[in-house]
Structures are given as C-alpha cells and as structure tokens.
C-alpha cells in the first residue's frame, strides 16, 4: 500500500503541486494588487473564457489553420533536412560545399525572416509553412549530419563486408543507425516549428491562433489572450508527445 501510495504521489500529486502553486500565485497577484480584468483576469475567469472559446467554430478554425501550417512546414522541413544531413554525413565534398551556407543561415533565426515572408507571401498560409520549414530544416540538417558522422564505424565495416555499395549503406545502415538521434532532434524541431507558426501569425496572418490572440489583445479581451496562450502551450506539448510516441513505435528505439 505504501508503495502504491508513493506511485500515485509521484505520478499525479507532485505534478499537480506545481500547477496549484502557479495558480495560487496568479490568484494572489490579482487579489493583492486588485488588478482589473483588462490587465490580468483571475484563473477562474480565464477557465470559463476558455470553455466558451472551445464551444465556438471560429476557435477550431484557428486551431486548424495553425496546425495545418505547422504540419505542412514541419513535414517539408524534416524531409529536406534529413536528406541534406544524410548527404552531408555521407559525402565529404557535399559537406565541404554546404557547411558555410548552413552555418551562416542557421543563425538567422526564423523570426528575422517574418518581414520578408509577409512581403513575399502576404498573410497567406504559404509564408507560415515556409517559415516553419525553414526553422525545422536547419535543426534537422545539422543533427542528421552529426548523427550520421557518429554512427559506429563497425556497422559501416559490416555493411561493406556484406557487399553494400555507398547508397545502400547510407539508406540501410547509416540512416537507421542514426534514427534515435534524428528522432530526438525531430522533437526539438517540433517545438521550434510550433513557436515559429505562432510568432508569424502574431505579425501577419489571415487566420490562426496567433491572429486570434492579437485580435483579442487589440479589443482588450485579456481573458481570451491568456486562454489562447494556454491552448498554444497545450498543443505544443501534445505535438511533442505525439512525435515521441511515433519515434518509440520504431523498432530502432529499442
């Protein structure tokens, strides 16, 4: 019984403690400083706002748009990034030719591109998709190239011994051997990509969670702003968990 009690304590009670502390500080701040609803509504008000929001069709449309932009950009960025990283890991020439470009571009954070994407693509989905793809691409390229370079050399020797030519060796040995590292990079990239979507929507969008929040802010609906922020956090965590689950389902993760 003691052991069971401990398990429940660890799994459920301890995480709840953190949430309760944050809510308590929030509530206390509102109460002590007598903050008006426009500045900071109390947790319960935000909770009811969120409940109302979830019941509207517009909210789900915004969620759908943001997720669509994210998934499309993420798929493009991951695919191209893994392909580039694999080529860089396999071919020294390719690596030498590409490293300067990758190394200089990857420090231009995605947000620096937002003005240009608005100039080129307006407030359309394409701009956001490109931005997510860009954000994800560099993380995936650099991590994949590094993972491929660190594959156990014995596995390469085994593959060569078995008669594999370079392309087969790359696809059948190096890529699966690097998969666990690539999968954890893919998780980190998802967080970056999701941040990029929301940030881009803040600045210029025709729909999406970011736009919902900026519209709410300009009409001083602070409750909606905070509710939207919570939704962004929850979706981000959900996306990360989903990618972890997909990665774990692969036999290479064993």
């Amino acid at each position, binding site marked *: 019984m003691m052991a069971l009690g401990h398990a429940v304590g660890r799994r459920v009670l301890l995480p709840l403690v953190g949430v309760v502390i944050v809510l308590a500080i929030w509530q206390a701040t509102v109460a002590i400083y007598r903050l008006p609803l426009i500045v900071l509504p109390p947790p319960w008000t935000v909770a009811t706002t969120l409940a109302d929001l979830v019941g509207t069709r517009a909210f789900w449309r915004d969620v759908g748009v943001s997720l669509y932009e994210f998934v499309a950009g993420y798929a493009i960025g991951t695919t191209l990034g893994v392909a580039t990283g694999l080529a860089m890991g396999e071919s020294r020439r390719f690596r030498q030719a590409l490293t300067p470009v990758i190394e200089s571009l990857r420090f231009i954070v995605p947000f620096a591109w937002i003005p240009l994407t608005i100039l080129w693509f307006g407030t359309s989905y394409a701009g956001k998709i490109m931005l997510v793809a860009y954000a994800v691409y560099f993380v995936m390229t650099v991590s994949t190239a590094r993972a491929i370079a660190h594959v156990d050399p014995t596995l390469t*020797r*085994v593959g060569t*011994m078995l*008669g594999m030519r370079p392309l*087969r060796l790359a696809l*059948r040995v190096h890529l*699966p051997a690097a*998969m666990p590292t690539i999968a954890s990079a893919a998780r980190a990239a998802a967080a970056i990509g999701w941040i990029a979507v929301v940030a881009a929507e803040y600045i210029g969008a025709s729909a999406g969670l970011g736009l919902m929040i900026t519209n709410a802010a300009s009409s001083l609906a602070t409750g909606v702003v905070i509710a939207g922020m919570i939704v962004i956090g929850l979706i981000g965590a959900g996306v990360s968990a989903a990618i972890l689950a997909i990665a774990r389902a692969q036999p290479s993760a064993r």
Partner: protein
Amino acid sequence: MTTATRHATPTNRHAAMPTPTATDAAMTAGRDARGGLTVERVSHHYLANGRRTDVLDDVSFSVGAGQVACVVGPSGCGKSTLLGLAAGLMRPAAGRVTWNGETVRMGPTDHLGMAFQQPGLFPWMTVRENVAIGLTTRGKSRRDARRIADEFLDTVGLHEFKDAYPSQLSGGMAQRVGIARALALKPRLLLLDEPFAAVDAFTRLKLQQEFKALLKLDRPTVLFVTHDVPEAIALGDVIVVMSQRPAAVKTIIPVRREERDRASLAYAHKLAETLACLGVTSDMEGE
C-alpha cells in the same frame, strides 16, 4: 551437425582446388599463381593526434585457396588490422594484399565473409534479419535469405532467438550471430577475428567442431585470428605467429592432421612448439 543436408548445391570448386596441405612452398611470400590470399610486404600505421603508431612491419605470407591460416600473436599486435586489409576495409600504407592474384581494393565485394571482434549487429533488426540482409544484398530473394539465415542460426544454436533483437542477446550469443552472418554468405574468403572469444569453453569446443565441418563443405580460404593456441592447432592448416607491435611474421608453422588429436603426443609437441614461438616456454624448463 546436419550441415551435409543443408548445402544442396555443392560448389564444383572442390575439384579445381589442391588439397590443403601445409607445404612450405605455399607459404612463401610472393605471388601465388594458384589463387588464395597473399600478403606482400605489408606495413601499416595509424595516425592519432599527430602521433604515428606502427602496427604492421613488412608482413608477408600467403594462404593457398581452401586453406585455413590461423594468426596468433600478442594482444594489440595488429592482427585485426591484418584482417581489415585483407577485407578491403582499409588500404595498406605500404605493400599489397592480393586475392586470387588481384590486388584487393577498398569497397564491397561478393567473395568475402567476415566476423568481427565486436559483432556489429544492426540493433534495429531481428537476429534473423541481421543474418539475412547480407544475402539479400548479394541478390538472394527474401525467402531464400530467410531460409538460409534460419539454417545457420540453427547451426550456431540460436534458432529460438531468431526473432529477438540484438540488445536481448548475451555477448557470446551476439558473437555467434556474427559468425552465422559471415558463414551464411558462403564466402570464398572467410575472415574471422577471434570469433569464439566471448563464448564459454564448452560452446567454444562445440562451435569449433561445427565450424570445421562447415569448412569441409565449401572449402573457403580462411584467415582466422585467435588468442587460443589449441584452437589454432585444431582449426589451422598453418599457424602464422606474429611478434609484438609493430607486428612482423615470426614463423609460419604447418599443422599436420595427426597433430590435431588432442590426446596425442604429436599435439603436445605442436602446442609446445607454437607456444615457444610466442615466447612461452614449457614449465619444466624453468625448474
């Protein structure tokens, strides 16, 4: 051991090949017109952090087609490097290695089977897939590859583990999978790097016997690195004794059939002779 029934298609190479006798002529350095593996004046070194480590120093010997050469020598003397060079996994700094009269080049071939000291199994594949992938790479159908993989896993006593993943195996079991993977290719040149090192003594003797039976069927040319002198006598047609690093060939000792009988005086003499070459003298002399 039921391997005789497994190899339904015996190669016709038997006829073309000389019987493996350890004549001195076959062991002399230089080109061997009859095929097999030759190592000609090979030297090799590694560079690490700007420091050069010489590993092989002017090594020459040859292994006639269908012969088994066991390489013995102190740890870290470059035996594994020798195998890597014979496999075409690296290029010698000086000298050359030839296979059937042609210089061994870097890259994949289809005459080679090799078992490594670190088994190097692919962790994302089952044991059976690990053995089968070499066969499919070399053009066998998936079904044939699966069947052959199962046969050889049976031979090394791992039939029940064919659907397991490498992480679920002990070190000795993983090594046996590595051996099965090399043997399943039915290679003309078989390179083995201490293949039975992580296996317990009993299994080791059993594997040695089965290995000998397998060799009789296909008669590959074998280069077998081992620490174990009795094993070298049991399996080798010749024993190549290497010196400390940078390794050179100290002596090449032919082994006759009657010297393999562990109950015989001839075996005892051969053991003493080989150990003496390695710098180990018999206990009696010290007293």
